[in-house]
């Protein structure tokens, strides 16, 4: 792709291909430079720069006190972050891998999510919990979980997941600036996805809580987020051969949930498929389908369908391609949307 000039806030920068991991790292760096209360902590975030190199260079630039290698203990990392936030710091913690975050679950659910509420607003906790999440990178067990349903079932947390390089930067900056705790889910298999991007003048993005139509269409809406967005965009392109013009909505956050954008899209198209790689049973898709049905029942030409991972523990890497919803499975669902139209 050719480079292009972009201008934001009076700054001009030359856009060139950048990965999502680089954009995330830059967001951390810029947030730390802009606000001395921003602290990064976690296992391996310092000298190593994180196992995905997202925090690369931060310890060198800001020192060990601002980017801290902690003992290996996720509850301790997040629990310490709670105390740091209580004293006016803005901690950004890294959980390294989705399933490694589970020991910190009590801190997250019982304290991080509830401190504002417990103290009647006196003590909000501006903590960002970065969780590299999801499958598709050939990780062995406990390295590929999709844990968003656990987080979205916990009032008090924002649950955010970027799917583009622009969003990776913009949403992370916004998460760190938020006075509410944010679980920031970074789709591991998109870490190395590239787009033209300028670190000097990153694009302004929609705020947390706003869904974005990534591809307009008329025949049906694919509702998705995070790692499944590229799958849906590819499916939408492929579907044109069948005469289907699919709209693709990227939720960008599950909490807050953008009912308006989703409902407006489904009312236009009359058909909807929710696509995500986490398990279907008890998963986000059920909630989304219910919300869509409640708001769009009279506009629907077919039931809202879900395309999700199987209801199985995350499979071993040599089998994960069968579990992860791919283009074909999305297209099969789209085909099933026709039953009402045909009958």
């Amino acid at each position, binding site marked *: 792709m050719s480079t292009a000039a972009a201008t934001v806030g009076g700054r001009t920068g030359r856009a060139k291909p950048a990965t999502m991991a680089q954009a995330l790292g830059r967001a951390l760096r810029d947030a730390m430079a802009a606000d001395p209360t921003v602290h990064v902590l976690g296992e391996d975030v310092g000298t190593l720069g994180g196992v995905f190199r997202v925090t690369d260079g931060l310890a060198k630039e800001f020192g060990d006190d601002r980017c801290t290698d902690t003992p290996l*203990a996720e509850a301790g990392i997040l629990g310490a972050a709670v105390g740091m936030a209580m004293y006016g710091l803005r901690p950004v913690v890294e959980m390294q891998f989705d399933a490694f975050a589970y020991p910190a679950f009590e801190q997250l659910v019982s304290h991080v999510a509830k401190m504002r*509420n417990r103290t009647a607003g006196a003590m909000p906790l501006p903590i960002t919990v970065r969780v590299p999440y999801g499958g598709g990178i050939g990780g062995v067990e406990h390295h590929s979980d999709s844990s968003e349903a656990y987080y979205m079932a916990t009032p008090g947390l924002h649950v955010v997941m970027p799917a583009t390089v622009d969003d990776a930067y913009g949403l992370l900056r916004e998460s760190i600036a938020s006075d509410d705790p944010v679980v920031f889910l970074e789709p591991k298999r998109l870490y190395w996805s590239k787009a033209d991007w300028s670190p000097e003048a990153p694009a302004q993005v929609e705020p947390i809580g706003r869904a974005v139509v990534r591809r307009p269409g008329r025949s049906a809406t694919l509702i998705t987020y995070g790692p499944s967005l590229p799958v849906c965009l590819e499916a939408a392109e492929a579907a044109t051969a069948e005469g289907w013009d699919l709209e693709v909505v990227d939720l960008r956050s599950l909490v*807050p949930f*953008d009912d308006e954008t989703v409902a407006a899209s489904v009312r236009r198209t009359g058909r909807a498929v929710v696509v995500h790689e986490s398990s279907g049973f008890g998963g986000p898709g059920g909630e989304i389908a219910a919300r869509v049905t409640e708001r769009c029942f009279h506009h629907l030409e077919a039931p809202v369908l879900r395309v999700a991972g199987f209801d199985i523990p995350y499979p071993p890497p040599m089998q994960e391609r069968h579990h992860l919803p791919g283009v074909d499975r999305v297209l099969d669902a789209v085909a099933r949307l026709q039953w009402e139209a045909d009958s």
Partner: protein
Amino acid sequence: MTVQELPGAAAYRPTPPPAWKPLTDPAPLLPDPEPYRVLGTDSAADADPELLLRLYTELVRGRRYNAQATALTKQGRLAVYPSSTGQEACEIAAALVLEERDWLFPSYRDTLAAVARGLDPVEALTLLRGDRHTGYDPREHRIAPLCTPLATQLPHAVGLAHAARLKGDDVVALAMVGDGGTSEGDFHEALNFAAVWRAPVVFLVQNNGFAISVPLAKQTAAPSLAHKAVGYGMPGRLVDGNDAAAMHQVLGEAVARARRGEGPTLIEAVTYRMDAHTNADDATRYRGDGEVEAWREHDPIRLLERELTGRGLLDEEGIATAREAAERMAEGLREQMNADPVLDPMDLFAHVYEERTGQLREQAEMLRGELAAEHDPLEENGVEGRR
């Protein structure tokens, strides 16, 4: 291939970073085998009379507070109360050793420490009363919310103390936990973090004999809970938790040590919970009267009273004065607790997020409508006689 078969495994030794000083002799970290005591020993003569009298007044007030709060549960004015009767010396000393700028991290049983630190007695009870989770601004009083999950407040204390030191503030965090709480993972992680970061934290374990019904012997195989400190690289201190003077001294030394930048201390206070776990518990199922009676001989108020009267610092009149002050506090508490709190149901949505989500806005409107109409779905559907 097993670890032993790894090439060069036998020769492998981890390389310590340059700054790391190996602890060659753990002996200074080990607690004395017997709990440290002041009252009834020779060192009692060195204790400051003013401090002893202050401790006494606060102990008597604390005992009365526990009794009053327990009585309020019977009147339905408190949902639940975990009494600290018998443990008042720990509670009071913990509050008194801290400077105003320091932070207290209490567990659910430590209402008394919060009150002794200056918190309004009614505000301290909102959690247990059931009208609000935390009835005070933690930053204003530098008291974290009373923590119900076990030991989870300990890493908070570490993080806060660490943050204060990073900011250059001369602040110490004192975190309280029970004997049962020392089995939790968060206890381990907090102590480890504190030691590695040399955070200015004091961990106070009130070993009151039981985690609800489970005795210490089934909780740990360690020689004492204070011994756990050595594994993390911090000193452990064993102290008589019913000896207010000893508690104040040992806690004070640990706070001073933390303030000097010398890192955390773990203190085990050996005490006894005279009442049941809470008013809802039946302690007779797991311990005998004889055991409780034996501890009555070692009551913290009695110990201090004996010392003060023996030294001619306290007489019948002084005792009566302390009791009257406590009675006035109890009266005030009773009066305030007997007034029904005015609650706004719309507060349910007020402090979930800084800004309400669309979902919460919808739900708040629904509740507002219900409150306005006193919504009764059965009545609306023609079913009568419900009201």
